[in-house]
């Protein structure tokens, strides 16, 4: 008993101040939102698109990166001979519409997620219960969602909780490309969630199929099957990116 109290004192209070205080520091090598300089592409160069493993980068009259497909591997930045593509430290990436994830050359950011519509916000703004459905993928997204429940992040202080049954949930948080073998389970889980409900697609897999894009054994994400209210890109998204998305959706971050 005394040892437990001593241990408790040694470990101290570790819940971060964010969002009231500063965000926790990310590594200086953290790859957040990419930035595409407005000019500088050598004539006819398509090196970035050729290097991209998932076809997230395309080059027509200008360079575009679909953050929904992006694995944030920076293979495009390494391939770029003119440093047109770089990865910034900006962790804020969550959006409400799929097309908002398409970052165009010269654009300085994506239109970050707005809060839920007033009626839903009054229902879910201070208490949002989510059922997580893992539907393919590699379990890294799940791991960094779980991190939000640790004492450092303490997601519960925002009234957001993960619940054991879809019947207790206000919505689903989906990870993975939705494999054929998880389709039925996802449909049933969605049907078991009472209306009104929201759907969050978390990670490149759930948004676009990610590394498994166009595999016959999987769908290209949850978007093909369900209406999605929030897209949180990344492979996997940093816990800070996930939290930022959830707090924007519930109207707690508006800048």
């Amino acid at each position, binding site marked *: 008993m005394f040892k437990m109290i001593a241990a408790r004192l040694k470990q101290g209070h570790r819940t971060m101040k964010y969002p009231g205080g500063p965000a926790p520091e*990310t*590594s200086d090598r953290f790859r957040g939102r990419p930035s595409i300089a407005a000019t500088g592409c050598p004539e006819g160069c398509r090196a970035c698109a050729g290097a991209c493993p998932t076809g997230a980068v395309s080059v027509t009259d200008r360079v575009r990166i679909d953050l929904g497909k992006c694995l944030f591997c920076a293979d495009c930045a390494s391939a770029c001979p003119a440093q047109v593509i770089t990865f910034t430290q900006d962790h804020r990436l969550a959006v409400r519409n799929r097309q908002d994830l398409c970052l165009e050359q010269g654009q300085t950011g994506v239109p970050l997620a707005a809060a839920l519509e007033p009626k839903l916000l009054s229902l879910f703004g201070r208490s949002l219960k989510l059922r997580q459905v893992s539907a393919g993928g*590699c379990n890294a997204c*799940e791991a960094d969602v779980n991190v939000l429940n640790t004492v*450092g992040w303490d997601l519960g202080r925002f009234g957001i909780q993960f619940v054991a049954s879809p019947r207790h949930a206000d919505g689903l948080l989906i990870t993975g490309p939705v494999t*054929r073998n998880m389709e*039925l389970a996802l449909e049933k889980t969605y049907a078991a969630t009472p209306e009104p409900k929201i759907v969050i697609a978390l990670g490149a897999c759930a948004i676009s199929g990610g590394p498994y894009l166009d595999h016959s054994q999987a769908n290209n994400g949850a978007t093909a099957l369900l209406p999605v209210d929030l897209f949180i890109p990344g492979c996997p998204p940093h816990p800070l990116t996930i939290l930022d998305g959830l707090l924007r959706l519930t109207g707690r971050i508006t800048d």
Partner: protein
Amino acid sequence: MNRDREKMVTFTNGWSIDLDRVPTFTLDAFEWAILDAVDQGKRVVALFGVPTGQPEVTTLYVILAQDQENYLNAARTQIEGDRFPSLTPRCPQVHLFEREIAEQFGLVPGGHPWLKPVRSHRSWTGRDAWDRSPDQPILPGVSDFYRLGGDVHEVAVGPVHAGIIEPGHFRFQCHGEQVFHLEIALGYQHRGVEQAMRGGPHPRSIHYAETLAGDSTVAHATSYCQVIESLSHCQKTARAQTLRGVSLELERLANHVGDLGALANDVGFLPTASFCGRIRGDILNMTALLCGSRFGRGMIRPGGVGFDVDQARVTALLRQLDAAEKDAAVAVDLLWETPSVMSRFEGIGPLPRQVALDLGIVGPAARASGLSRDVRQDQPCGVFRFAHIPVSVYDTGDVFARAYIRWLEILQSMRFIRENLRAIPAGACQVPVGPLTPNGLVVALNEGWRGEVCHVAITDETGRFARYKIVDPSFHNWSALAYALRDQQISDFPLCNKSFNLSYCGHDL
């Protein structure tokens, strides 16, 4: 009974050989070679099919490990038609490999005692081992389960579970609280990675490797890169090998610390649960300090590592390691000193040594059951040829042993990281890799935090992957969990499950 040693090709982990050197046995000799080898204490690392140009002919390959003498063996045989005799009744550790061959190639292992699909997908050949018609849907978890009947009732759990975890279906045969039998049906995470690797390497290959099991990104990416480097005769630098070793041990640290916290949580001991959850995050952030990703994405690249370190970064890592070690010691010692925790750990979910041996169990689960089995010692590659990590072994095989092994390994990994970060050899962190040798075979084994990660690649005449076989440690170990539940209380399932903490996606591929 020594036929295999004369005939099978002998090679070592991470060294490619010409495919011609792998002898083709008759089916009978192939089976005897496996049985003899297992009798002599070798392990089946992989047993898998490879399509040939002719649809009615399939080649089977076996990779065996001789752990005491640190070498590997390989042999192959041709199967004509749609059947081959099952070895499972005489060699239980191949049971799931044979089911996998049945599912992927539509070959029936005749006499297999429990021939069910592994991942619930259509075969690669059009033949179906269960004679299902092409228009009949294949659904995971929808099949016969072993039933006792009478007063014994069934409890079904999953695929969608209560927590934030991956999908799988568990079917318990219970009498009251007592579990007689547990059957585990997986495949929900199947996304077709092995098939997608064929014809590679291509830009996505390394990303498939990094996402085979997200918590084992470094282990799988290292095996993949060893495959590429070996087949392209690329000599990576000592610096790169050291940084890979450090990354691998950081991955082990994060997961082992997380598991100890989760085990504490499953017995309702919240102090250690909350401390360890946070400390795990600190260790993930150390990996992020190395490469920008908490899971090691981008760190391991063909030819070396994607990110170098300077002295300032090493100093920062060592400082964070010291802090994590102090915090972890305080948090974890509470477990061993709290009688209510120990009474829930000791004697629960025992896996006897002989069963672990028979089922071919790997990793901490094997070491907790008294098997001294660790790729870093037995089939060393990379930095582990020069910097040894003592193997931690315990003998009770219960939840306590699996927890305690993790703590011993945490201490060893911390020492390893500290020593190696202080003495990183000079040199480049990455060297270029060339095209792959045609008609080659390579086996790349690494000791991931769950156990042996195995990648086998066979190249075609143009140097592309004709077959890429992946064996995650979970593939071996799910049967151990099922076994450990026998005669246990069903309420102990979460605890037993967490003590193995196996990967669904790594199994389902």
